[in-house]
């Protein structure tokens, strides 16, 4: 239920695994962690939403904020998500056309490594 955040590095990529509920109450902690990572020099960030049970507009706002920040810093930002209820949220908000969405972390990393930054 509570937000969980775990960071690991895969080659040039920083992978942030998010779990639990990302909502108006916990989204500030996600924002803070993403800022820390970006301020600490991370430029290719993958956020794995695989263990997220709940995501609301505040959480989506934080993710869009990170995407913009990385783009303007010349970096890349991608999401990993393969659960239909979560994918529906991205479709309904048209954010599936804003974020690179991948079914696995490997897919996100190899898509970002072969093409240009997102």
């Amino acid at each position, binding site marked *: 239920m509570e937000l969980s955040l775990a960071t690991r590095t895969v080659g040039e990529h920083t992978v942030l695994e998010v779990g639990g*509920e990302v*909502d*108006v*109450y916990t989204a500030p902690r996600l924002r803070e962690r993403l800022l820390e990572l970006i301020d600490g020099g991370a430029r290719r960030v993958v956020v794995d939403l695989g263990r997220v049970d*709940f995501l*609301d*507009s*505040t959480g*989506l*706002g*934080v993710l*869009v*904020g990170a*995407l*913009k920040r990385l783009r*303007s810093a010349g970096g890349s930002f991608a999401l990993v998500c393969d659960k239909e*209820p979560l994918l529906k*949220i991205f479709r*309904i*908000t*048209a*954010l599936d*056309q*804003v974020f690179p969405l991948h079914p696995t972390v490997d897919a996100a990393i190899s898509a970002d490594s072969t093409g240009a930054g997102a």
Partner: protein
Amino acid sequence: MATVKLSFSPAPVHVRTARLVGVAVARRAGVREDLLDEVRLAIGEACTRAVALHRQYGLSDPVLVEMSDSGAYAVRVVDRAPIEAGIGLAALPPDELAKESLSEDALTTGVGFALLAGFVEDLQVRPVEEGIGTEVRMVWPVGR
């Protein structure tokens, strides 16, 4: 007649309580299990919006959630913010969403409205009948 009413100080933590109650009452009212994720999300979005408005206007008044289950499951989320703030929300197109100039708050509001409109078939947003404020009214079918 409202069966269950919840009112809470406009703080983010209580939005979680509202989601919990909204889903529990929906389940007991007989809303189909596969609709409960939508109920959770929609009540959360309506309350998040109300809390944001109260904070924006410096209002300490409680946010009100009324749940009634006579015939269908009807939920009203009532804020006390000046009316102009409540209405005129619209979903944003994708190219707007990614624009640098759009603030995170404005984006969140737009996305929140898109989620409400997208998930709730029977949705009304209108001024409250008495006093200042807006009510978001959502209805789900009940079928055992």
